[in-house]
């Protein structure tokens, strides 16, 4: 860390990054380091040339220890990647970590959690999404009827307008009342 990285990212760019994320200068450089570690040669070369838009493949991104064992790694990468392919630029990467940082407000985290859990991208969490979610959280180790029962319970608890799906507002409401969420929805590199 130190001079070599700050040289790679121009002062101006750093300033902007800093302004627009929840990170401090030091943290941004640290995150850059972790980004570079995903594929040192590629990143270094591109950043030397001033090309901050160099993309990391999905396979490379998930080498990050915090993502590697997450059951939602594919969703996280897709949600945060600009073209929704799962490939990430440094801005996407920074963006992701910014949302997942301790400093991000709960609303923001909730909005992105909603996107992550909305597996079929239809802007609501329906039964299929919940099934998938339960399965992923439990590591696909529960019986189908148990999963169904749990999904029923979740809907009973959270679906305020009783239409069988969770909308963003309902979802956010639950997360708002869950004090655990901020602590859990957290990646710190």
């Amino acid at each position, binding site marked *: 860390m130190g001079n070599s990285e700050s040289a790679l990212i121009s002062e*101006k*760019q750093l300033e*902007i*990054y800093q*302004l*627009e*994320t*929840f990170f*401090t200068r030091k943290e941004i450089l640290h995150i850059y380091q972790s980004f570079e570690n995903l594929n040192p040669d590629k990143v270094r070369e591109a950043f030397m040339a001033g090309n*901050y*838009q160099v993309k990391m493949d999905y396979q490379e991104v998930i080498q990050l*220890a*915090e993502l590697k*064992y*997450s*059951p939602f790694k594919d969703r996280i990468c897709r949600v945060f990647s*600009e073209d*929704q392919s799962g490939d990430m630029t440094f*801005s996407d990467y920074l*963006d992701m970590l*910014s*949302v997942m940082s301790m400093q*991000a407000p709960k*609303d*923001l985290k909730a*909005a992105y959690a*909603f996107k992550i859990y909305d597996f079929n991208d239809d*802007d*609501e969490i329906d039964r299929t999404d919940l099934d998938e979610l339960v399965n992923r*959280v*439990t*590591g696909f*180790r*529960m019986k189908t009827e*148990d999963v169904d029962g*749990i999904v029923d*319970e*979740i809907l009973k*608890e*959270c679906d*305020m*307008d009783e*239409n069988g*799906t969770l909308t*963003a*507002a309902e979802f*956010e*409401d*639950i*997360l*708002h*009342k*869950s*004090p*655990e969420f901020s602590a*859990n*929805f*957290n*990646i*710190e590199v």
Partner: protein
Amino acid sequence: MDFVKGLFDSDKESDSGSAKKNRQKMNKNFDKADKYNSKKKAKKDEDVTGVPRRPNRSNKVGPGADVPDQSVAMNNLDSSEDMPEIPMRPKSRAVILPSGLIIGSEDDSSVHTSTLSSHSSDSFNPRNGLPGLARIEVEDVDNGLVEDDKKSSTVKRQVRTLDGAGRRKSSAHFGRSVSAPAGEKLSLAERRTLRRAERVGVVEKKQLPFFTRIAYEFTMGIQKTTRKIQEGFRNAQIWGPSIKELEGNLGSGVSTYFRVLRWLLKINVISMVMALGLIATPGIWMNEHHDLPDTSLNKDDLNCTNPNFVEGNDTAADVANYILQFLTGQGWMEGTALYLGWYPASNITRTSGDTEKTTYNFPLAYLLVGLAYFLVALMFILNNIARLFKKSAAEKIETKTYSELILTGWDYTIQNKKTAQLRSTTVIKSLKEALSNDAQKFVKISFKKEIGIIVLRVCTNCVAVAAMIGTVFLYYREVVRGTSEDAANSTNACGEKLETADFSNLTDIEINEISAELITRELARFWSSYSASIIVSLSNILFPIFFEFLGQYEFYRFQSTRIAITMVRSFVMKLFSVCVFLYVLYQATKPSGGIMETWQRDNNTLLYNCWENYIGAQLYQLCIIDFIVFCTSLFFSEVLRNILINNIKWFRSKVEQPEFNIPKEILDLCYKQMIFWSAIFFSPLMCCVAVIEVIVIFYLRKASALRNVRPPQKVVLTSQSSSMVNAVFLVSLIFVFVFVGLVIFQFKPSAHCGPFRGKTKIHEPLGLLIENSGGFKTYIYDNLKMTAVIVSIVIIVLLIIYYFKSLAASRNLTIKLLRHQIKVEHVDKQFLIEHIKSQITGKPVQEGKKDGTVSRMSHSQLSGELANKTKKNMTIHRYANPSLKI
């Protein structure tokens, strides 16, 4: 580059010229964006022509209808300005909603029935957007510095205000508006393109006027500085990487424990700085300069006891004595700055001309710092509690087990395969437990069985209480015996010295005999001076285990209840043991009728010259013993156990890997901190011991946790534990404070030692200060001493608490009502959709998904329901509206 910030106007803006300008700019941007957006919408509509939209997502609801009172409510809720586009006009006909509202027949007004989900949110809607979700494109930075700076400051300010406003808004009421990303279908990339388009507008702006620019630069400067300061604070957080590593390996629950440790370190470091800077340094300086008018200090007076544990004249014995005295905090330790007795009673003065001027009133400083420790700790705890309250407690009505486990339960901090697997196992376990709990709720227990269980629980509680009282009695007796034996030992010491003098004339056998005798005697003596601390520490280790064992036979229906009861018992036990320890000390050193005084009267000798040192030494001892017990138990229960499990097959099949019991460990920390707090007044340097101990505990625990311990089996809710932590620490602090307060206000300080020697009460310097400073303050001080005032203050505080509690309760009621309203409105919406559909297709209303029963009702049936529901709705609004302003 896209970012997590919004670019909105906000009515919370300051009224400076720059802000106005800014707002205009923003408005222009909104216009642009709106145009863009509507184009997009139009395009989308084209795409989907003919395809009916899914009802629960469509925002083209209920055209031509207005719901008068609801629209007011809705405006309050989300003040959405944009109207949904209306695809077609319905026939002008009154519609009765299921909730009983008659929707007007005029079709000129627009609809406000956008409820929770069906919000046509626009990323440029100033109120709807989340600060983080609208994005700005700033990757090409070569557009000139001024623009960029201007822009970023604009953005930043906007974000700040919006952020604040948004947060305030969200905490102000439930049912807040939908966040931008969820309501709309724009992908992040699309939104970015939008931003790019919008940015051109920003760049084209003229140069700002001079004053505006100055104002901008000023705010920028302030923001930069605050950011720097925050950054500094954040970088100064110690143990960050360690905690992160632990979090990654053991989950966020375990990291709570380490966060508590870090928090304790902060408190103790602040105390240490105060103690070293304001007490120890001046004290040492004054004791070095003997020209000060302080002749009353006699080193021998400081020694309360004469604990030469090992007899002998050789160096080995000296070293052994030295170490043992270090561990007990007696002997040579008593003549050091560790204890209150050592500190001088004089002031630092400066002679200027003829008059002597006091520059540093040492006794007063000592007293004030002694109180400041508590104040600091109290501030820390209250700060935490306030933050927690703000975060969650106010809105929590019911617990949502399943959704909390599934929706918020995954711990993203995990970065280790084993932990990830364990986490999902834990979730499965918790889910199963929740399911079985739910099933249990419906299981009826026969009357006979119930009585049996009640009797059993009464018995176990009796056993628990009896065990506690037994222990308490045991060490009360031990302390009493310990004090009298100490006295006996000090008279014996001379005789023993004679014995040791004759050593050279004796044969080996005789020496052996004598030394064996001596050893037993020494052991007895050692035990007598340590017994109280040992009993307290052991009971602290054993009782939680005992309570856990007890809890298993009480047939609690839910595991959580059992754990909670075990925890409460353990906490009461710990609190009790410290309190009794302090009480015994109080009894022993009490000015009249105390054990010591009785002894002194009966034997006509002075037992302890300096009771302050005695208290300090006892607490120091307790702290050291407790630390030793902690280390041993850590070694046996975690390190050794794990080694055995890893290496011996038989052991592996019998014993499980130790688990990190978070509540128990945190209680243990609380107990340790309680000892520090009670000792801190009597030995200022205990803060240093505390700091060292906290650091050592952190690293020992960390090392052991990473190697030997598996993550807790139960999902431990961090919030629960953190509110528990605060409560526990607050209660302990209050108890300790009462003890110290009693000592300060009731005891007569020792005649020959400590900064308060020669005074009648310890609090005298404070009283003197206030009396000297004159009229009004003296009046307050005199009155404050009266019990009545203190009682009335307590009553006022209780009343305030009661007021806030009832306020919270009323808010909860509002929340419930609003929630009901959401439900009702949704039914209305569904009904309307069905109605419109039937209008379009010309078919009669079909059975809806959920509200089919309602929509199938005939109008006459509906009007019957109508009266009830309207009434209900009116009530809701009556409740709802004023509450929104709270």
